[in-house]
Each structure stands twice: as structure tokens, then as C-alpha cells.
């Protein structure tokens, strides 16, 4: 692990120097939201299955791949009456087999007004990408979406006994062989699990098992236990993340943009306050 830490620190310092030098030389054109646009990054070379990699090193830029959503309807366990009531109160913009959709302007998804997606919704956002870092005692997951950074403590600490609710929860990781097992507790249950309004309570226990299958592939499975809202655990299949070339980009949710979009697009599209 010490090697990972050193490698990550060297990488971060090296990149910082490189970026500083590049800007200092005036070579970077800032023409996309203040960010460097430049040419498209080169694609990664094809994965060589025989290429060596460190299975304990997740550092790099990763993106969930297609194939299926991480929350699949067939996986959803039966809800308790309380869980069902909350689920049905959520008005969503995309239809699913268990719920009709409404126009987004008539929905109540908290992210429509720039509230945090929270974790694990960030994990389920298949359009996003994330930069993973190893730093002393932690693995960081910097999600492009909403610019959220998740801290996974790997210094041997225990989970908090009576945690405060947090949008991203409180995460502790440990290695079981080549699998990183991450347990998370202490959730803010105002966030939704996904775009369909699936629910979780502040008492949820969420476990992920991450494994680097090859140089460019991370797989993760998860187990959600929340007896307040579900009658049995929610266990997923395998989901893959693919290493990316390129850079993480700024994708903050600015209320001034979101509210402008609501007033000028979502609302008129739904016949609300149409001009």
C-alpha cells in the first residue's frame, strides 16, 4: 500500500507541475467553460490481457460502461409498506414498470433543483466518470457529476456507531485479497437512490466489492441492506468500469443554470407558464 501512496503522490505532484508549466507557456486555450478544450485525448491502447497491473491500485480515470443500469428493476426487493409509500410519493420523469412518469417540470426529483445526488446515486449515474486516487489512509473517488468527492477510509478505522446523515455517507474500506470491500453507513435519506425514485433510509448499510479484473476494467457488486424500507437485501450483479483517457471535467450543478433551464425549457415544455 505504501507504494501506491508514493506513486499517487508523485503522480499528483507531477501533474500539478505539468499543468502549471503548460499554462505558464500559454499553450492551453481556455474556451470551454474556462477549461482547456484542446484536441481530443488519444485513446488508450487495446487492453493486453497479459499486461501486468497492480490489483490494489485503482488510481486513474474510470467510467461506467454500458450494458445495464446498476439499479435494475428485476433486482429491486419487496418494499415495506413505509418504503412503498415513500417510493410512490416520488414523481419521476422516466417511466418504469412500477411507476408512471410525469413531465420533469411536474416531478419532484431533488436534483432538478441542483440538490446533491448523494451516494450511491452517484455510483449509479452511468453517464458520469470518476477519478480515483490513493492518498495516505484513504481512497478518493472524485465524481465528475456535481463535483462530489467521496472519501473511503482505508486506515483501519471502524465505522461510526451512531453516524450523522451525510449526502455521501461515511465509508470504510479494507482489502480482502485483491478485492476492496467498502462499507458505508450514515446516509442522508433525502437523496434518491436513482432516477426512478428508489428509496433508502438513513439506516441503510451499503457494501461494495471492487476488483480490478485487468488493466482497464474495474468490476463492482453491491449489497444494500435497509430493513426499514426493504424486506430483504438488494444484491446486484457485476458492473464494470472502464479506464478512460482524458481528463475529468467540471460538471458542477449551478442553481442559476438549473433554474434558468426549468423556467425556460422544462416548464414551457410541460405547458407551465408558457409564454
Amino acid at each position, binding site marked *: 500500500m505504501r507504494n501506491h501512496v508514493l506513486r499517487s503522490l508523485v503522480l499528483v505532484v507531477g501533474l500539478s507541475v505539468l499543468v502549471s508549466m503548460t499554462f505558464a507557456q500559454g499553450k492551453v486555450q481556455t474556451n470551454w467553460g474556462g477549461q482547456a478544450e484542446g484536441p481530443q485525448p488519444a485513446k488508450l491502447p487495446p487492453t493486453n490481457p497479459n499486461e501486468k497491473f497492480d490489483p490494489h491500485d485503482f488510481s486513474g480515470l474510470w467510467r461506467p460502461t454500458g450494458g445495464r443500469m446498476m439499479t435494475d428493476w428485476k433486482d429491486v426487493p419487496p418494499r415495506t409498506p413505509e418504503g412503498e409509500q415513500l417510493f410512490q410519493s416520488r414523481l419521476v420523469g422516466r417511466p418504469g414498470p412500477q411507476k408512471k*412518469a410525469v413531465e420533469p417540470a411536474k416531478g419532484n426529483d431533488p436534483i432538478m433543483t441542483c440538490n446533491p445526488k448523494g451516494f450511491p446515486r452517484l455510483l449509479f449515474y452511468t453517464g458520469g466518470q470518476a477519478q480515483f486516487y490513493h492518498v495516505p489512509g484513504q481512497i478518493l473517488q472524485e465524481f465528475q457529476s456535481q463535483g462530489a468527492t467521496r472519501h473511503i477510509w482505508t486506515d483501519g478505522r471502524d465505522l461510526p456507531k451512531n453516524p450523522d446523515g451525510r449526502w455521501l455517507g461515511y465509508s470504510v474500506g479494507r482489502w480482502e485479497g485483491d478485492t476492496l470491500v467498502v462499507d458505508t453507513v450514515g446516509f442522508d435519506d433525502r437523496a434518491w437512490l436513482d432516477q426512478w425514485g428508489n428509496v433508502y433510509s438513513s439506516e441503510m448499510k451499503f457494501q461494495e466489492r471492487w476488483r480490478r479484473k485487468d488493466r482497464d476494467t474495474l468490476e463492482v457488486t453491491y449489497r444494500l441492506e435497509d430493513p426499514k424500507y426493504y424486506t430483504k437485501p438488494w444484491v446486484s450483479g457485476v458492473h464494470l468500469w472502464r479506464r478512460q483517457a482524458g481528463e475529468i471535467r467540471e460538471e458542477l450543478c449551478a442553481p442559476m443554470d438549473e433554474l434558468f433551464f426549468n423556467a*425556460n425549457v422544462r416548464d414551457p415544455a410541460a405547458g407551465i407558464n408558457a*409564454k
Partner: protein
Amino acid sequence: MFAVPLFAHHGTEISYDRSKAKTLKGTVTDFRYANPHPIVFFDVTEADGKVAHWVGEIAPTPFTLQQNGWGKNRTLETFKKGTIINITVGPSRAGTPAGVVMKITDEKGTPLLSALGGDEGGGRGGRGGRGAAEE
């Protein structure tokens, strides 16, 4: 011409009806390149001479547009105020002058943004590659 895969915000197909796509000749009055989705504002002069103020939702996010070569500067330059466009939209089901943009050509018919049709994600995963956006 760049075809940009669609990564629709959830609910796009609820608000709009692509099966009733219509192509309009319009004049760009503004273009907002921002999250959650870029917006093109354009005026359309109707048969009776009245001017309708339309709004078009660009389903791909700025991030997706940028990945496909449509950075902010290029986009704003292409769609600057006063530009004449032919724009195909899936109109709002509410009958308001709002639509999800499916294709834009210039005045001569040269494609600009295109392949903006079809709702990806959809709840059952994407088409691989870049991955489909959830929302």
C-alpha cells in the same frame, strides 16, 4: 458535420413527441451553453407574419457535446445571434413552442448538429462505448 449521440435527461420523451417531428426555419436569438442541457432560442415567422419565440432543448449535455467536438466557443460561434437555421424538433406534447432538438442545418441545408434523436438510457442500459447517461 458531427453526429452527436443523444444522452437525454430523464423525462425528455415525456415532455416531447419525436414522432411528430417538425422542421422549422428560424433565426437564432440566443444560445445558452450550460448544464443541465444547452438551449437554443430561435424565432420562427409564421404564415400570418407573426413571430413565434421557440426554445429548443439540446439533449446532449455540454460534456457530451464537447466530447464530440462541439466545445463552447465553436458552438456559440456557429449559433450566434441572427444565424438562420433549419431546425428539426420533437415538439412539446403541451403544444407550446418548445421542442427537443433532433437536427440543425444551416441556411443552405448543410448539417450542423444532427443525430440528436432517440432516447438513450431508457432504464435498461446503454449502447456501450461511452455508456448511456442515466439522467
